[in-house]
């Protein structure tokens, strides 16, 4: 299944705006374009996406709740059959907004929370009171029947607090707790020395997170990092090996530029002018991501077939080569015999 080539992405991660009311230490899009597609043009782009066969869109940014037309765009998308979700910091999400999101067709909303400790989260996000508002947002979403999740970017401020993060998620009855691996993009690159973990620390984190995933009931703990294949923990039901970016999902920026994922700054087309299926099929960049070649310690590694070199975005950001071993990999530096 590693070479599965779909006719179109299953999911689009769509940064419809890059404006934000927060100042997060790991923000990947702070320096992105602030050009935005007009609503009418955006609608025609959404129609293109539907026609191509895409199942779902996840709106992000920036903070999508700052987009003045978010509700209309979501209603238009869900009306065409797309499954609509969003990632938000929760600051602007009160009960009335939750009702409006429900009416616009949102089925799932993820709220970013980076620590169980309010003071740690607030400092990291740059806004006092943001932790309390994020938790309140979860409560409002649950009240109106929207499935909730917590998204936590794992870094030095939270890597040893798995139990506490799980307890917070259980207490607020979210369906899913997403532990996202740390990417070295945008401010994540600028602050990587302060925030990123060493390979050995990643190993410890994932060992403990996988143990929690296997034992905690009533909560789906999601680990999206391909390198957990080193711990024999990759989802056997996944359609593809390695990263899903460019294989199952695609990223669209606020100006319509398409990139393999939100953390790889290589533009492969623009949804306004280009045919999505054509780009998906013919992109040289996507082809390279789908057919990675082992280099360095990946060569001969017994886990390569499942891991495929780990996170392509991270390898590219830190080495300049998609095929380089994931810098988070704790495997032996010597190629396996």
């Amino acid at each position, binding site marked *: *299944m590693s070479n*599965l080539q*779909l*006719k179109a992405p*299953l999911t689009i991660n769509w940064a419809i705006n890059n404006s934000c009311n927060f100042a997060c230490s790991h923000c990947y899009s702070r320096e992105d374009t602030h050009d935005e597609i007009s609503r009418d043009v955006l609608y025609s782009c959404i129609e293109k996406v539907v026609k191509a*066969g895409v*199942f*779902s869109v996840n709106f992000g940014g920036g903070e999508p709740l700052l987009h003045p037309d978010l509700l209309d765009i979501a209603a238009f998308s869900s009306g065409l*059959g797309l*499954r609509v979700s969003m990632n938000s910091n929760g600051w602007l999400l009160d009960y009335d907004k939750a009702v409006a999101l429900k009416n616009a067709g949102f089925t799932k909303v993820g709220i970013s929370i980076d620590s169980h400790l309010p003071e740690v989260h607030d400092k990291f996000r740059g806004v006092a009171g943001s932790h309390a508002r994020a938790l309140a947002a979860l409560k409002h979403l649950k009240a109106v029947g929207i499935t909730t999740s917590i998204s936590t970017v794992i870094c030095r401020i939270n890597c040893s607090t798995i139990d506490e993060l799980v307890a917070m998620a259980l207490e607020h009855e979210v369906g*899913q707790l997403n532990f996202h691996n740390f990417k070295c993009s945008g401010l994540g690159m600028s602050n990587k020395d302060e925030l990123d973990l060493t390979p050995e620390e990643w190993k410890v984190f994932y060992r403990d997170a996988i143990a929690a995933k296997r034992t905690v009931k009533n909560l*789906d703990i*999601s680990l999206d990092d391909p390198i957990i294949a080193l711990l024999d923990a990759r989802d056997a*039901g*996944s*359609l593809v090996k390695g990263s899903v970016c460019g294989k*199952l999902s695609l990223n669209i920026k606020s100006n319509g530029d398409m990139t393999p994922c939100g953390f790889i700054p290589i533009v492969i087309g623009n949804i306004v002018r280009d045919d999505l299926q054509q780009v998906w099929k013919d992109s040289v960049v996507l082809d390279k991501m789908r057919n990675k070649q082992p280099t360095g310690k990946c060569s001969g590694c017994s886990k390569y077939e499942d891991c495929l070199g780990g996170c392509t975005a991270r390898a590219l950001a830190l080495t300049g080569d998609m095929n380089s071993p994931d810098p988070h990999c704790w495997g032996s530096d010597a190629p396996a015999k």
Partner: protein
Amino acid sequence: MSKVFRNPDVLWRRESDDSDVSQEEAVAAILFSGGSMLSLNEFGIELWEMCDGQTVDEIVTTLMSEFEVDEDVLRSDIQDFLNSLFQKGFIRYE
């Protein structure tokens, strides 16, 4: 006998609009439900499309006219496939 229905929450699409999928193992369609995904070959998608309120007996009868195969073998294959779809929540019985 109970009837088989596709779960309406499952999104699905054919992958074979413009390419031949004559190979038995080629991916002909994708089912998608939240975080759960499944790829189907041509036989799988044909069976999936028949989960529209037909009974297993009706499905077996229809497919017996298409395949030169022992009925018990076909019934067993169909039941195994439906069991896996049911376990993933992709179909329901009424």
